């Protein structure tokens, strides 16, 4: 993975083995350390340098749709 300071990518947890999970990044399955988060199979995690730094909010999983809803609420309601 290209190393950039902030870049982090979302992956879906498919298998949990203690503190390491297997996460699916659009077909690439890669081990991810979950020492910084609490997850269950099916969760999406944001991964930075091999570590999950946040569990993605499943209710807001459709990120662009949520983005536009937030803007609508802020300025058009």
């Amino acid at each position, binding site marked *: 993975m290209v*190393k950039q300071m902030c*870049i982090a990518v979302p992956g879906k947890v498919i298998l949990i083995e203690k503190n390491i999970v297997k996460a699916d990044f659009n077909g690439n399955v890669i081990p991810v350390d979950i020492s910084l988060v609490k997850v269950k199979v099916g969760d999406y995690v944001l991964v930075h340098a091999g570590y999950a730094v946040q569990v993605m909010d499943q209710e807001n999983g459709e990120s662009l749709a949520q983005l536009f809803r937030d803007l609508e609420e802020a300025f058009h309601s």
Partner: protein
Amino acid sequence: MITIHDIVNYLKNYDGPTVRLMEVCGTHTESIFKHGIPSLISSKIRLISGPGCPVCVTPADYIDRAVEYAGQPEYIFCTYGDMMRVPGTKGSITLRDGKATGAQVEMIYSPLEVLEKAAALPQKTFVIGAVGFETTVPLYALLMEKMLKQGVINIKFLTALKSIAPAMEWICQNEGCGEERIDGFICPGHVSAIMGDRIYQPLMTRYQKPCAVAGFSGEHILAAIYDLIRQITSERVEIHNLYREVVRPEGNLQARELIDRYFQPVQTAWRGLGEISGSGLRLRDIYREFDLAFESSCGEDQSLCRCGSVVTGRLNPDQCPLFGRLCTPNHPQGPCMVSTEGSCGIWARHVLRGKENKQLDGKGD
């Protein structure tokens, strides 16, 4: 429901007073150029890159110190790739130069890699060039935890870890009036994922700057710009989280507790900004033996590099006399050209190659 087309139309046709928006994340800088955002928006919306590249804001004498450790036989210096080519003070040698002449330098992708290396070679001390913002700090805290638990203690950090919010406050305290003022902040998405968005409250309450926490896609960044313009034109001063899928108000509490367990805030030096209190993160006193960080202020840099002005948004890269001439991606004079997140390197990749972006901030014009 608003659409991306509505947003782009609004931004393209914006004809109000000139607005200057600062982002403080090298990955945002890259994304802005990659998606051609300056060409999509009105020339009255100026996008400024601030001190968002951790390598770029590390004082030059940090490299001198790193090269010194790498040259001693009992140490192995571990660093990220983009630190390898950053010059030290007075144009002195880089870590890459040092490695070529026999210094022990190893490239790493994550600080946690060093644990296995150090366990396998207990007779050496591994020094990690610990440079980064809050997205990366939890990994160093985790490494400390694992080191102590596993008894692998032949690792030391040369810390230059920083918190971005104090630097944003510095920008507000030191902005000029008129052309140098900042009207709003695009806040870093993944720093916010760790720290939450409440860290930007002083910008709102003390300095009256609207903030929008942004993700990294073109849509996320355009939405943040739109949000800030709408706030400014309606005289609202709020913090809007536009990256709710990963950013909670409180951030990642587990990661923050881990950071707090091992690190303390300290005054530290930022290239181009000077000393800022509470802006650095160094190991707590009980772990001091593991931290080689120096306490001194910025080293005097005799080179002509204008990185300090670039990271504060006072100069665009192409306004530096060295840009594209003496300073190029192949022959960098300073960290802003070397680092993947440095503004000069990003401009060189997107602008020097003829991908024209007309609507960039016209400082000096």
